[in-house]
């Protein structure tokens, strides 16, 4: 391990220079982790807000007003697909209703289904902000914005008029907030038999079958595959219905990658130039070592080891600095939680070391090629 020993001594002989390189790498890696973590957390938060409580894939009849049959074949296909998040396959019946309090009125989409199944997507239990999560017969859960608009509180009974002139009275058991004012204002949850009776559908007929995926970005691919396996139904997926959001998220990712890429290029150039200068500074020593019999390969390894040490130290410093930066950032009033993925931190640190190693290629080659006679003749 003579090259490592020599590399270490060379680095120690110029502590200021070595310290500056380590600091440069640390700043680069800290920026990489900091920016990357913020963007990833922001996207996760945005995704959770927009589609966290919504279906990623919705299966409907081709004609909007027709029911879709939740056949055993369809049930088997969707529930056995490992890409579907377990416990989130929800057959839903929905019917339009009119609410009026005498002075004001509003249309309401009444979604009916099994509470346990609905909870898989809409997370009603978690998102109940007032009252209890319950939709037994004669019970209804209203959105926060709807309840506020009409001054309805938990325990009150409201009357709804359905499309076929049927009416129904429901006791408000709970108020939910799904994070979208529009959804809170326009939708309510009841037991599945309410819309079934209004629509007069059979037990296996539903307005739609909704589900969430383990990886939301798989939705387009899965929808395309299923549309071949499930003829006669319409398969909608969230990306197709939220193109603007998708473009925004992709642009955000792209800008994040570009920032991280430029940071890494800057780090690489910094290390490469400093190591090249260091190689020139140590030409005399390398020449003497070669005169004493040090072969080209171990001579070149000296700068490879220097780069590895600098890269490892800089990356370690960068990881520590990124934790400190994120801790500071958490003090600011941000509306989303920033989490650092251990895998992302590890990959970033490894990138730092790899960039440092790549940056040592030029000085390593210079050193390998150095002829000791050049040093001896030039004194």
């Amino acid at each position, binding site marked *: 391990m*003579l090259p490592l020993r*020599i590399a270490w001594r060379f680095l120690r002989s110029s502590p200021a220079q070595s310290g500056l390189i380590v600091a440069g790498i640390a700043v680069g890696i800290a920026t990489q982790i900091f920016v990357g973590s913020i963007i990833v957390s922001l996207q996760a938060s945005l995704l959770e807000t927009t589609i966290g409580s919504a279906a990623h894939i919705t299966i409907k009849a081709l004609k909007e007003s027709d029911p879709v049959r939740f056949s055993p074949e369809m049930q088997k296909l969707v529930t056995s697909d490992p890409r579907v998040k377990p416990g989130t396959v929800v057959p839903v019946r929905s019917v339009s209703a009119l609410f009026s309090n005498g002075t004001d009125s509003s249309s309401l989409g009444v979604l009916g289904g099994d509470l346990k199944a609905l909870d898989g997507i809409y997370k009603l239990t978690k998102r109940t902000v007032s009252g209890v999560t319950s939709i037994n017969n004669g019970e209804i859960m209203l959105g926060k914005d709807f309840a506020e608009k009409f001054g309805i509180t938990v325990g009150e009974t409201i009357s709804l008029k359905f499309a076929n002139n049927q009416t129904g009275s429901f006791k408000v058991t709970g108020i939910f907030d799904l994070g979208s004012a529009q959804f809170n204002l326009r939708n309510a949850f009841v037991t599945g038999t309410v819309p079934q009776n209004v629509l007069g559908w059979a037990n296996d007929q539903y307005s739609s079958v909704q589900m969430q995926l383990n990886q939301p970005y798989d939705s387009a691919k899965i929808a395309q595959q299923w549309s071949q396996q499930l003829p006669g139904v319409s398969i909608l997926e969230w990306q197709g219905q939220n193109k603007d959001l998708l473009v925004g998220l992709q642009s955000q990712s792209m800008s994040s990658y570009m920032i991280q890429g430029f940071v890494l290029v800057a780090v690489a150039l910094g290390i490469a130039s400093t190591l090249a200068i260091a190689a020139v500074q140590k030409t005399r020593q390398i020449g*003497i*070592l*070669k005169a*004493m*019999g*040090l072969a080209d390969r171990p001579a070149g390894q000296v700068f490879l080891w220097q780069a590895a040490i600098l890269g490892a130290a800089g990356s370690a410093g960068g990881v520590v600095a990124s934790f400190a930066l994120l801790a500071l950032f958490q003090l600011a009033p941000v509306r989303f939680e920033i989490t650092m993925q251990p895998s992302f931190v590890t990959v970033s640190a490894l990138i730092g070391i790899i960039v440092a190693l790549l940056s040592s290629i030029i000085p390593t080659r210079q050193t390998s090629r150095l002829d000791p006679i050049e040093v*001896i*003749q030039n004194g």
Partner: protein
Amino acid sequence: MADGCAEGTLLMANDLSKTYGEGETATHALQGVSLEMCEGEFAAIVGQSGSGKSTLLNLLGLLDTPSDGSVRYQGRDISELDKAGRARLRNGLIGFVFQAHYLLPEFSVLENVEMPGRIGGNVPIADLRKRAIETLALLGLEGLERKNANQLSGGQKQRVAIARALVNRPALLLADEPTGNLDTLNTNLVYDLFRQINRDTGTAFLIVTHDRSIAERTDRILEITDGRLVQDIRTRDVVSDA
């Protein structure tokens, strides 16, 4: 050329030439030099500045490659060796002392002396350290092992460089104006050391100097003029002296 070697032939240079540049701008630094050196010989190369003596030393020390001719060490033609092979041979067989000490300032005196052994990797570290300490003691440098090379005087630095050249127990020590930067007192000290080491260890010495009086303290003087070996004088009988 020496008249046969009682202890065996250490090196044989045959028709060595070195030319820098090409065509009209070509400079013939060395032309057709042939010589034989015996094991344990104590010799000097003399000549004016620019006569080609350092070029000859660099070729014999495998630091440079000849434009023409060959060098054989202990019967082996070194033109058969690749760069790594020449580096190994240089490390194991040859020690160098230059006018500048060329010590590594990043390492202590002891580490500098150990360096050729560490490069060679053939001697266990503990044995190498013991050998380095003994060599430093032989050169009167006890107690300076932990010091940095920059903390020593000029004479001490050159003696450390000599210790470094000797630590691998080379068959040949090549010295290029080793006392060029030293005062008379240190110059005499260094040559006395060379002679003592030559007698005690059997290491052959080939010393480049422009100072004839120094050369006369050796057993053989090789004189180079304009890149040619013009004189090869034996001043003492090596075998009987040893």
